[in-house]
């Protein structure tokens, strides 16, 4: 996460704040109340944008990143973190969708909840992705967790159209795809349309900002994990060099060394020891631990990668 990235996050945050404030101003002070619904109509500037972010932006992004993670060529932890961030923010927005919808439904329909297709499938979606978050909380190795979560997300996504389809058939009371019951006779026009549009922009910006921040948290959490790993690796090194197994022998030997007295069949093994001597570099190659699937000989030298006592091998051939 570079400084430029942080600046971008801040800019997006600022834009989100400004556009949200502007939407609030337009919604409460500029736009008129509606004929039938009165001032309740102002939920129009919040509920549909929130639902749009939850159902399309968040879960679309999560599906895309899970797919890209599972595809071998684009498999990096970037997609895993992005997907997780998107789901987490998406769950918040889905919950908000249900809450604002419910607040709207109570005065207009007279009930907090109806078993309409739209509500039911949104609620199911929320539960599906709560399951994803529960799975993500299970402690595991980052790669393992990433793979597991990507599969879970994808399996859940495959379900979404089936859920929508079946729930639509199941209860088609609400089949008009519009936001409101047609009987309420609401026409969105003029300043209302502009405010609603701004609401969409504002909520999308809020979403992007939250994902960026959340992504950064993921990166930092992983970095802590990596630093812990470096510490435990160096402890392991210390543990290894503290134990001297045989005082007479060199502290660390190259395997594959043909010891005297071994049968002639092992000459080949002895020859390999010379190859090994060429390979043996003073700096051990463990620094790439952090960079997954990095080049075999990474350049970046970590604290661990200093030549440690006992590892700085003597020439492997001249053992005796």
């Amino acid at each position, binding site marked *: 996460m570079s400084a430029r990235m942080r600046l971008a996050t801040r800019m997006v945050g600022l834009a989100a704040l400004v556009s949200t404030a502007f939407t609030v101003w337009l919604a409460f002070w500029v736009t008129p109340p509606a004929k039938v619904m009165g001032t309740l109509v102002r939920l129009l500037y919040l509920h549909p944008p929130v639902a749009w972010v939850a159902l399309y932006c968040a879960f679309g992004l999560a599906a895309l990143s899970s797919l890209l993670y599972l595809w071998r060529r684009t498999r990096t932890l970037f997609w895993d973190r992005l997907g997780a961030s998107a789901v987490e923010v998406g769950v918040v927005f889905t919950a908000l969708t249900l809450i604002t919808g419910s607040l709207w439904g109570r005065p207009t329909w007279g009930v907090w909840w109806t078993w309409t297709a739209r509500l039911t499938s949104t609620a199911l979606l929320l*539960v599906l992705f709560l399951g994803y978050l529960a799975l993500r909380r*299970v402690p595991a190795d980052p790669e393992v967790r990433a793979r597991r979560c990507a599969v*879970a997300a994808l*399996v859940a996504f495959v379900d979404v159209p*089936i*859920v929508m389809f*079946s*729930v639509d*058939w*199941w209860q088609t009371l609400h089949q008009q795809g519009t936001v409101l019951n047609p009987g309420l006779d609401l026409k969105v026009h003029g300043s209302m349309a502009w405010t609603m549009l701004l609401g969409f922009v504002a909520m999308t910006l809020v979403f992007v900002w939250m994902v960026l921040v959340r992504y950064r948290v993921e990166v930092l959490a992983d970095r802590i994990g990596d630093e812990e790993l470096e510490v435990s690796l160096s402890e392991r090194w210390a543990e290894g060099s503290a134990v001297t197994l045989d005082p007479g022998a060199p502290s660390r030997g190259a395997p594959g060394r043909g010891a005297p007295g071994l049968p002639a069949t092992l000459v080949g093994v002895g020859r390999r020891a010379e190859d090994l001597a060429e390979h043996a570099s003073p700096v051990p190659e463990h620094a790439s631990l952090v960079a997954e699937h990095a080049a075999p000989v990474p350049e970046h030298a970590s604290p661990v990668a200093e030549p440690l006592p006992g590892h700085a091998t003597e020439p492997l051939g001249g053992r005796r």
Partner: protein
Amino acid sequence: MWRDALLVAGKDVRIELRSRVALWQVLPFAVLVLVLFGFALGPGPSALRVAAPGLYWLAVLFTTVLATQRSMAIESGEGTRDGLRLSGIDPAGVFLGKVAAVALQLVAVQVVLGAGIVVLFDVHVATWWLALVASLLATVGLSAAGVLYGALSAGLRVRETLLPLLVLPIVAPVLIAGSRAWSAALSGAVASGASWLKILGPFAAVYLAVGVALYGPLQETA
């Protein structure tokens, strides 16, 4: 893949026949659920008769969770999980084999449950073929989704609580479509009932395909 699937399914079924967990625990549980529904919905037969398809499918859903948990428990030993990964069996074969074994158990449970709602809830089936086809498609879909999530949560310490949370929302379409199809089968409304098969069929196909594609990476996470 098919040979491996047959091998794994044969092994799972044989283990099931030996241990009789399905017979002595899963089956009584399913019947118990029906009886409890009877208590909850009161002694009047008309309410029970209306609710029967839904209750049947709920019982099947709960059974699916138990059966997949059991199917994964077979492999839960440290040694056996490695064994399956080391054996060189195609992961898709493992998936299909496990699905087949779970599906077989679900069929057995459904036979008993079907008899149960006929006896306990006084239900008459008007269109047998519709009920059978719906059950068959639903069974394949339920087993596939169940095994997929079972593998996902296998090896986790929290798997008993996590699996129902993951599986039950996923199989909600099966509950909806299955109950509607059965309602139609009971009342003889073939045309409306048959349209629900258009959900059960694709559900089964989609989850079989997803499982075949993703079981490999999933096995490595255990």
